[in-house]
């Protein structure tokens, strides 16, 4: 399969077509709106489903296979904000807090992007480590903590640990999605394959349909922020397009080194390439309120997220094909 073929295959899938429909509906002002609780409900379902499935796989695989890639995922989350900070400071001349906040977003992960990647692998029938959602769970927080520390250290010399560090850590380590994912992993781990069978009809069968509905909503959410592109400047838009590719390459290599299959290395690439748009903004607003939310939210939600789910996924698949050579 060449790159164009795999892009076509990705973009012509139900989730992505409805993602596009969501974008178009906002651009044409079709005034389609899903009620706000839909977002919470669908994201809860998706996290629960992949967490549970991952927990069942964890039960079968045991921790001996999982710890090394998990440590690698955490390490990626720690180092990505550091070089993002450098690039944004020197290259784009952003303020220290803005650079640190954006770095935190790019080091952290987007669960939707990951879930779309899982569906992509399923559609092209590539096997992967089913426990990979454990890497999603451990990779959300480290970058947020690093970003906050970096922003405070650079922004206000001296008291960078601050008295409210406890709240910041709570926000970073116990965000809604991390809690739900870890809880679902645990539930799946306890139930094992018995639980997988009994929930198959709910967690597996409707999965692509629910993802389709969710991406339809996400298309609208992303498109509503497109107007802010003008406020953030060309440099940051370019950053939001180039960094995922760079991080994808690094993630793929790290995944491969830590012993993952080509499918698993692809998922590690996707995790490294994705940028957070819920957990990180929430933590940044509380911990680094001086950072400009328009910058990090627009870059992550209106640039990197749409890029990753449309062109990014096939591109990272192509990278795996080029470098590891064992991907259909």
């Amino acid at each position, binding site marked *: 399969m060449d790159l164009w073929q795999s892009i076509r295959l990705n973009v012509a899938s139900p989730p992505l077509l409805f993602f596009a429909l969501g974008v178009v509906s906002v651009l044409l002002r079709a005034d389609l*709106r*899903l009620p*706000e609780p839909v*977002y*919470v409900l669908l994201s809860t379902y998706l996290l629960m489903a992949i967490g549970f499935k991952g927990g069942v796989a964890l039960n079968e695989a045991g921790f001996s296979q999982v710890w090394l890639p998990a440590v690698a995922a955490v390490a990626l989350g720690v180092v990505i904000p550091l070089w993002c900070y450098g690039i944004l400071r020197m290259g784009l001349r952003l303020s220290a807090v803005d650079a640190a906040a954006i770095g935190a977003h790019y080091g952290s992960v987007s669960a939707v992007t990951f879930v779309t990647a899982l569906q992509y692998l399923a559609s092209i029938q590539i096997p992967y480590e089913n426990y990979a959602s454990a890497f999603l769970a451990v990779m959300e927080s480290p970058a947020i903590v690093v970003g906050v520390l970096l922003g405070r250290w650079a922004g206000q010399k001296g008291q960078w640990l601050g008295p409210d560090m406890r*709240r910041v850590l709570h926000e970073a380590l116990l965000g809604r999605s991390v809690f739900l994912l870890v809880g679902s992993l645990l539930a799946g781990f306890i139930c094992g394959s018995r639980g997988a069978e009994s929930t198959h009809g709910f967690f597996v069968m409707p999965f692509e349909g629910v993802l389709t509905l969710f991406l339809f*909503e996400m298309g*609208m*959410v992303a498109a*509503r922020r497109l*107007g*802010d592109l003008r*406020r953030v400047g060309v440099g940051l838009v370019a950053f939001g397009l180039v960094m995922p590719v760079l991080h994808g390459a690094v993630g793929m290599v790290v995944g491969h080194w830590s012993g993952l299959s080509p499918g698993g290395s692809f998922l590690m690439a996707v995790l490294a390439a994705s940028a957070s748009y*819920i957990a990180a*903004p*929430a933590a940044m*607003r*509380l911990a680094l*309120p001086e950072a400009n939310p*328009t910058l990090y*939210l627009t870059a992550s939600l209106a640039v990197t997220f749409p890029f990753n789910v449309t062109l990014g996924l096939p591109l990272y698949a192509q990278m795996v094909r080029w470098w590891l050579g064992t991907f259909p």
Partner: protein
Amino acid sequence: MTTHPMTLVTVVCEALARQPLLEILREHGVRGYTLFPVEGAGNKGDRPADIEEFGNIQVEVILPEAEANRLLENLASRFLSRFLGIVYTAEVRVLRPTKFETHRS
């Protein structure tokens, strides 16, 4: 029916500022408030509430005038400097003034 004068303080702010705002209210001994999710637009652009975290919240509390003034000062110095939001007051009349007394711990 006899009614009593009180001050209504309304804060419309980003939803992510919920905890810090409620903490300030607690410090003032506020016992009751009403909070609802809202959306709108301001000088920093649209605030669509398609995702709860990105929308706004509106918090209303009713206080005796003196306490309301102290709260306003506190909000101006510690809250509005960090978060997007607006604060306004209105004179209202309530039926049972004891419901709105603050008690500091």
